[in-house]
């Protein structure tokens, strides 16, 4: 075969750059990537035996989780962030879906896995992993958003990238057994009136991450999941079994789930007293703020996804979600909230309590923009501004910051995390 010459390659690169600057201008000379036979069009690629389980191509190596070392004292009890600036659609690839551990990601074999149900049940039970796979199964797509997502932004614009400001989230298709099925297997006659009953769920890891959940939610749509996006859960996401708590703060999605206890009251564990309580301006704090309210963010353009193609056609895209139900509409503003236009929802939108993709197919003339997105859900809730949230809660809630985000798009196409009046 004839390899392209270095001179031809450089000529091709120059033409590509010129094309970028000139937008849709006609090519001045033939493109060697077309006129010269390329290696991949002549030699062979990798065999089917090269990669039993593949990773993304090397050119996508920037699409990875990132962490912010100064956020926590130690990387074992810490957080990392999903690269949502580079993703599209709604399903999060498991390999770059964010992690939050309180005592690290543990390795728990299916053979060593046990799930106990005890407390106010007719028969306390122990299940093996194999037992769980014999119950009738369901599939559902839900978002898991950390309660602290966007939490660093309460007091101001701080982190310059949507991965960092909004990336404590992932969205997967789960397969598992309704929690209701397992509770009924143990029998709830002993619990009596279920209206005032609770469950306490805990993980097999050292932190335990115990949380109390009212029985009404437990019997509604909570899932005991063992598959995500078609395959087993990743170790860092709770392998082999985690709790899926649709619409509710990620902390309650207990990983490496080992025990479910039926109780006549909440445990008021560390993760629902010291943490995951929201201090208000007067110093009192809200507890049991379980639901994640409607929220959205533009993922591109954004600080990590600047406009590089010059003026002309531009796709503004982002994500919207609500713990109350379905996203019904997303509006986009280019002028910091003075005027709004309604975006187009992606075709896979509509799952309740799941990520929804939106697009605004538009034109950019090279002007400065103050880009915002505003989500609405099927309860009529409209995503608030940060000023509205602060007026209600002050700046020290840490959790549940679902404010409208602003990106300042500059004339050179770069974008910056800003706050506006």
């Amino acid at each position, binding site marked *: 075969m004839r390899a392209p010459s270095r001179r031809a390659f450089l000529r091709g690169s120059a033409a590509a750059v010129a094309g970028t600057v000139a937008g849709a201008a006609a090519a001045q000379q033939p493109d060697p990537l077309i006129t010269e036979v390329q290696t991949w069009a002549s030699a062979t690629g990798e065999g089917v035996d090269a990669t039993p389980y593949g990773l993304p191509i090397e050119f996508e190596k*920037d699409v990875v989780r990132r962490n*912010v*070392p100064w956020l926590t*004292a*130690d990387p*074992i009890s810490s957080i990392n962030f999903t690269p949502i600036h580079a993703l599209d659609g709604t399903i999060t690839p498991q390999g770059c879906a964010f992690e939050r551990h309180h*005592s690290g990601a543990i390795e728990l074999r299916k053979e060593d896995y046990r799930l106990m149900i*005890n407390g106010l049940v007719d028969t*306390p039970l*122990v299940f093996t992993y194999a037992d769980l796979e*014999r119950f009738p199964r369901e599939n559902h797509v839900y978002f898991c958003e950390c309660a602290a997502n966007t939490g660093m932004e309460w007091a101001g*614009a*701080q982190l*310059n*990238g949507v991965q*960092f400001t909004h990336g404590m989230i992932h969205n997967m298709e789960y397969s598992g057994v309704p929690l209701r*099925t397992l509770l009924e*297997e*143990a*029998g709830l006659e002993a619990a009596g009136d279920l209206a005032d009953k609770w469950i306490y769920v805990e993980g097999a890891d*050292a932190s*335990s991450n*115990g949380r109390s959940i009212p029985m009404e939610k437990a019997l509604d749509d909570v899932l005991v999941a063992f598959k995500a996006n078609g395959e087993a859960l990743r170790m860092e996401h709770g392998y082999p079994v985690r709790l899926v708590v649709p619409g509710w703060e990620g902390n309650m999605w207990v990983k490496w789930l080992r025990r479910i*206890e039926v*109780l006549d*009251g909440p*445990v*008021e*564990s560390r993760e629902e*007293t*010291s943490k995951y309580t929201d201090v208000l*301006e007067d*110093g*009192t*704090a*809200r*507890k*049991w703020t379980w*639901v994640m309210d409607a929220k959205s963010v533009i993922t591109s353009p954004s*600080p*990590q996804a600047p406009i590089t193609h010059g003026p002309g056609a531009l796709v503004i895209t982002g994500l919207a979600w609500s713990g109350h139900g379905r996203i019904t509409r997303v*509006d986009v503003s280019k002028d910091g*909230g*003075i005027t*709004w236009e309604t975006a187009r929802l992606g075709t896979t939108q509509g799952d309740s309590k799941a990520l929804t993709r939106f697009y605004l197919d538009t034109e950019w003339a090279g002007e400065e923009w*103050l880009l915002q997105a505003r989500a609405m859900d099927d*309860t*009529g809730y*409209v*995503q608030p501004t940060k000023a509205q949230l602060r007026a*209600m809660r002050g*700046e*020290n809630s840490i959790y549940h910051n679902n404010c409208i985000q602003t990106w*300042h798009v500059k004339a050179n196409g*770069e974008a*910056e995390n*800003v*706050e*506006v*009046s």
Partner: protein
Amino acid sequence: SPVLADGYGLGRPALPEEIAAWDIDVRPGGQGLPEGRGDVFTGEEVFADYCASCHGDFAEGVDNWPVLAGGFDTLGDKDPVKTVGSYWPHLSTVWDYVNRSMPFGSAQTLEADEVYAIVAYILYSNDLVDDEFELSHENFAEFEMYNADGFIVDDRAETEYPQWRVAPCMQDCKESVEITMRASVLDVTPDQGEDEAAM
């Protein structure tokens, strides 16, 4: 395993020893506490051995590790200091969490009496008890935390949702817009390398 009425016949009954091994949660009324006791003096020694390297000799915290003591009456300040003393509503949570998940990296290695002693020392570090204090399963439920009344149940449905479930403005929503804060001023975003967009 036996087939259970109206079930799938999956799983097997949990044995009392198994439930006792895993069901160790302690609730605000003290339900779940094992018998035992520990005083401040003992707690100071145990705390020095197992806890002080991260939490400090006086529970004041080392580096970025959690501060366990102090911060009283700061919850309404610009920078609240939320500690066991200033913020935690229930003593049961302290006992439960220390017993279950501390020390960080070697959890579930403490004896019940050691946990009682550590909790007594944390209370002493918060000036909530004197140095003669002994905590036990018998006097546990009598103790009331400083911020016991500091919490309200989620009230967003009453305080927030009604005012935000209204048709939003689409045109001429405000007269002007100014940038009031920029992330680049703080410059605390991790470096992502040259191959990504300059920030």
